[in-house]
């Protein structure tokens, strides 16, 4: 209850900050002509990144017949759906003229990477929603059967959403086919959303963004932060909903291995992204890289590398580190490190333009988010958590039917 109230309060503060921004304009942020994209955009990239986990756990694992991940699919999918919703919202917040959003459809130009993003994010949202909904149908049937255990209003909702599902052989066949199909389709779409998001940066000339490595770099980082997010959610749901029977230590052990692999992969792309240009030290890159390695952004940069990648790898390489609590800590490190990493991808580049920053007010030379920006960013994060919280209160967070049938299969094998 306190948790929900706190989240709602943070959301309301964010909403008030946005009201101020609508009233006075983006001047309430500390973005200016040089740093024209700030934490709104880095938050957007973060949300898109974390939403990719839906496709990893649900689709890739399902297609690869990774059975142990079944109880985690719904957690992954609700993270994906809520994160992608708030990614879209935060982009609207960043717009100077949000009321002209429809122009994207009226006057859209297909050669702009923003249009590609609109298309793939929309597609990804609907596929994710379906991948959340279709496996929920058999569970809804179970929930409707246990009328006495749920409230009247909830029962009504369940019936509205799933009363047509009778679990007949025909329905099962269609559902299974559709889920497999969606799992196949969502993988290229997931790759697209984050590759296109990386292209918002990589299609420009700026040092730090002008990189052919960006698509793969973003995707690997996205899988890492998504897996980290799932680990954190696993731990919390397990503790507060007493799900030890379903989310077992074995799940943590296996997710730990997944996170190590993804962190190593992301580290590899980071080496490519920073050390190769650093070897050459081209003039426009030099100012940017030295600011990251030893300058103004050095503490954040090394925090993101050490806490976001290297330390979790070290923890999770050991069997003892793959127990629930250390896993939770490592997962938190990955997620927090990843948030700052997105900030480092967006902002320092904008402070290193090709031509010197002159003839502008002093405030244009720096960037630190204003309270309104923090409030809106925090509000959007609270919003994601709120959606997940409400979802978990209304629906079973562990897929009941799938877990049962998976267990049956296992028993039969024995």
């Amino acid at each position, binding site marked *: 209850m306190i948790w929900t109230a706190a989240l709602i309060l943070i959301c309301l503060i964010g909403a008030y900050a946005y009201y101020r921004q609508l009233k006075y304009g983006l001047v309430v942020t500390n973005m200016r002509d040089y740093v024209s994209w700030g934490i709104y955009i880095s938050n957007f990239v973060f949300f898109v990144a974390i939403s990719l986990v839906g496709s990893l756990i649900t689709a890739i694992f399902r297609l690869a017949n990774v059975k142990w991940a079944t109880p985690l699919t719904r957690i992954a999918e609700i993270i994906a759906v809520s994160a992608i919703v708030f990614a879209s919202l935060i982009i609207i917040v960043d717009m*100077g003229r949000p009321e*002209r959003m429809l122009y994207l459809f009226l006057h859209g*130009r297909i050669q702009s990477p923003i249009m590609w993003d609109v298309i793939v994010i929309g597609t990804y949202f609907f596929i994710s929603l379906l991948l959340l909904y279709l496996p929920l149908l058999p569970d809804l049937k179970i929930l409707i059967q246990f009328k006495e255990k749920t409230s009247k209003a909830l029962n009504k909702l369940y019936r509205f959403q799933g009363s047509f599902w009778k679990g007949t052989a025909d329905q099962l066949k269609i559902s299974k086919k559709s889920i497999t199909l969606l799992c196949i389709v969502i993988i290229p779409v997931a790759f697209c959303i984050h590759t296109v998001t990386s292209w918002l940066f990589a299609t*420009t000339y700026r040092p730090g963004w002008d990189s052919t490595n960006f698509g793969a770099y973003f995707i690997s980082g996205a899988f890492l932060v998504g897996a980290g997010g799932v680990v954190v959610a696993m731990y919390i749901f397990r503790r507060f909903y007493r799900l030890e029977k379903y989310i077992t230590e074995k799940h943590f052990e296996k997710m730990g291995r997944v996170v190590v692999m993804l962190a190593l992969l992301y580290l590899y792309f980071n080496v490519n992204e920073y050390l190769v240009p650093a070897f050459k030290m081209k003039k426009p890159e030099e100012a940017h890289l030295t600011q990251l390695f030893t300058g103004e952004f050095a503490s954040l940069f090394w925090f993101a590398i050490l806490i976001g990648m290297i330390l979790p790898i070290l923890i999770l390489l050991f069997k003892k580190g793959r127990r629930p609590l250390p896993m939770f800590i490592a997962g938190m490190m990955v997620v927090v490190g990843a948030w700052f990493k997105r900030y480092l991808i967006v902002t320092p580049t904008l402070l290193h333009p090709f031509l*010197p920053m*002159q*003839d502008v007010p002093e405030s244009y030379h720096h960037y630190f988010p204003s309270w309104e920006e923090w409030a809106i960013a925090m509000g959007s994060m609270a919003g994601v958590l709120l959606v997940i919280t409400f979802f978990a209160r209304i629906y079973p967070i562990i897929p009941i039917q799938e877990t049962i049938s998976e267990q049956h299969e296992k028993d039969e094998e024995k």
Partner: protein
Amino acid sequence: MENNDSSRRDFLVTGLLTALTAAGCSSKKNPFDSYAGDEVKASGETVKLLSVDGEIIEMDKAFLKPVPDLPRVSNSEERKGIEGKKFVMVIDLSRCKNVGACKSACNHAHQLNPGQNWIKVLSMEDAEHTAPYWQPTTCMHCDEPPCVKVCPVDATFKRQDGIVLIDSDRCIGCRFCMAACPYSTRVFNWQEPLLTQEVAAQPYSCETSMPQKKGTVSKCDFCPDMARKGELPHCVSACPNGVFMFGDLNEDSVTNGAETFRFSELIKDKAGYRLMEDLGTKPSVYYLPPVNRNFPYESGLENETNEDKHTHSK
């Protein structure tokens, strides 16, 4: 009239204007139609005028007619541009001493927010032991404009006369163009712009870029509204040292108001170049190198504002 130079310029401009209105008459619309019916009687008061041919003529005051404002062009016309033109600018770095008249004329004409400039006069030093110089930067009006490529709603566009404009009625304020522009030329209206009532009341035009609108991007527009009137951009006519030269590539001529050059010869003789050629943006603004300078670099330092000094000391 402050000096001979500017009066001469005014005459040149009037000449161009007459030519333009005459051309207008021959087509569908006669801008003088409304006067046609009026009978004009000589008042007896005469004025001396310089004709287009350079002769001094005397004329009765009553026969003078005010030149009406050119009719407003439609948005689709503004997006197309002026037919047959390909505008270019040449900036002669050997003449610049950071007077800043270009900047203030531009800021005044477009009522920019305090602190924001469409023209920035940068203090440049390419490498440690090379000579410092002053470099005014405008929008480069690239032929391969990165800003236009990324705009999702066609709010910034390239016209057939080479000018890159912004339609503030279309702009959604995503600021992708600002990230894409390697010349950092674009500014954003972070708040409701401070406008005089007169400007705020006038209908928006992408050619005047006025009135500016909150939450949209703006930038140097090469003053196409002036070009339509046959006049030079504000920065060009404001510069006391003739640094800026504006003209038409198709006519192969550029002028700073006082002097006119054959564009191709000027670029050839003075080894003109463009900024960041390696990016492939193909700017419409050419620079003449800061050699044989009219002023030493240091003489421009006194024109620096405190804000600039802060930057240089970094």
